[in-house]
């Protein structure tokens, strides 16, 4: 009898708890909406305006300047390639310092983790905008911004995959007299290769999207075309650029998927 009562109480408690969390959630939603002066009528009005804008001002696309777009499009791809290669190399080194099972010294681990989480938490477009101040308008600040952010992102995910390997293998070959370098080369790297490929290819996709929008802050590539044509209200040209961008991203995604299937 008493047993039954206890379970009833627990159930009731759970119910009350659920109600409270629901009310709490709704309160947060209400506060959030109040904070930015949000109302549904405005949203309901804005979405048709937005879609109408896309379909009337953007279509039909204007292909008259296509030849001028080739340079920036290639720049976008080159920047993504360089940024991915450089940041994957740097991130490998950082990751080995950062992972708990391969770090040469715990101090390295904490310092590297701190730097990486700082670099990663600032959006790369902000880094790029800051670097535009330093290096002037051009491809270079965008490239460096992508490298900064990409290195931090990859270092974190690489370190996580290295940590997942665990210490069985390293301990085993340490027991037969392997040095630190041997351990890395024969125990860590071979097991790490599949996740290395898959994360690096993923990073390439992110970098391609990133490199396409760098132009918005003045760092070259397709983004500068999009910003430039929109600032001049030549939306039909913008839509051509966006179409090129969509095609480029879909093609690259298709290629990376195929590569992933083959080499992992």
């Amino acid at each position: 009898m008493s047993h039954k009562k206890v379970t009833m109480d627990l159930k009731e408690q759970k119910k009350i708890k659920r109600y409270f969390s629901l009310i709490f959630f709704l309160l947060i939603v209400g506060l959030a909406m109040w904070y930015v002066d949000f109302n549904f009528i405005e949203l309901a009005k804005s979405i048709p305006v937005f879609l109408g804008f896309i379909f009337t001002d953007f279509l039909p696309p204007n292909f008259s300047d296509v030849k001028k777009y080739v340079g920036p499009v290639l720049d976008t791809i080159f920047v993504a390639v360089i940024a991915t290669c450089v940041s994957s190399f740097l991130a490998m080194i950082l990751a080995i310092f950062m992972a708990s099972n391969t770090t040469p010294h715990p101090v390295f681990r904490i310092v590297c983790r701190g730097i990486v989480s700082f670099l990663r938490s600032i959006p790369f477009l902000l880094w790029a905008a800051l670097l535009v101040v330093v290096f002037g308008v051009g491809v270079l600040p965008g490239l460096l911004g992508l490298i900064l952010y990409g290195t931090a992102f990859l270092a974190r995910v690489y370190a996580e995959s290295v940590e997942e390997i665990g210490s069985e293998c390293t301990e085993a070959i340490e027991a037969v007299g392997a040095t630190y370098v041997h351990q890395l080369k024969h125990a860590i790297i071979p097991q790490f290769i599949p996740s290395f490929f898959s994360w690096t290819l993923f990073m390439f996709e992110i970098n391609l999207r990133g490199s396409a929008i760098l132009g918005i802050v003045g760092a070259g590539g397709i983004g500068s075309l999009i910003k430039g044509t929109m600032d001049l209200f030549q939306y039909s040209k913008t839509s051509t650029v966006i179409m090129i961008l969509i095609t480029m991203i879909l093609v690259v995604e298709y290629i990376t998927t195929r590569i992933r299937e083959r080499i992992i």
Partner: protein
Amino acid sequence: MAVSQHSVKGSRREKISIGHKRTQRQQRIFFFSVLILFIFSIVMIDIDGSAIAKGMERLPVILASLTQISFEHFLEMLAGMVTTVVIAFLAVLFSFVISFFLAFLVANNTTPNRYLGLGLRYAVMIIRSVPTPIWVLIAVASIGFGPMAGIIGLMFPTSSFLIKAFSAQIEEEGTEVIEAIRSVGGTWIHVVFKGLLPTILTGMIATLGVRFEIDVHESVVLGMVGAGGIGYLLQSYIQYYDFANLTLGILIVFVTMFLLELSLNRIRALLRTQSS
């Protein structure tokens, strides 16, 4: 598999290769072609040596000015940061409502009509391939500056991300539960709410958490193209070389992202214990 990929190279004794030969060869080809592509890109890209030299000269000065910090605009920036987070929060919330239903229409095992599902899937793919800042640029151009442009600009890529993730989660459930409910006369609504939702809800909430983190990140950037929030302030500090305020702004973004990651990790751990 992973261990066996490694072969004993360079040893003078007889070599016994235990790696998967084809995979290894393909990996080598891949490395080699990436190397060529990398060198080609470096040659082709137009990087001005003098710009690097000038930038390096300027770098110490700018770094030194970034060590200054000014709390003059602290409250303004804090308000901006809250706006940024709120924009991301509302965008994720509305996108969840939209994508929840659409995901069930897209997923192979629950779609009422195969062609409808396929059509939606392609639409999602195209929406997803346009980067978020471009959506926001379009939103700002059509409905003007402000948080509403940010919310609408974020909703499109967020919904498409969520639809893709949710439909994959739904497809993982397979067809057993659906057939069981159908066989006793359950409707589509029953299948969705009684059959699938209880098992996939935890996964959905985890996905929402991931996307919220991404959206806060994006929302900071969006301010820089005119959607309000802290990004707008940061962009104006950069434009006017106001580094003392910029430093504080960057720190505020860093601390917010850090706290967000910590709390989302807590929620994830809680969900894991609840579901197991």
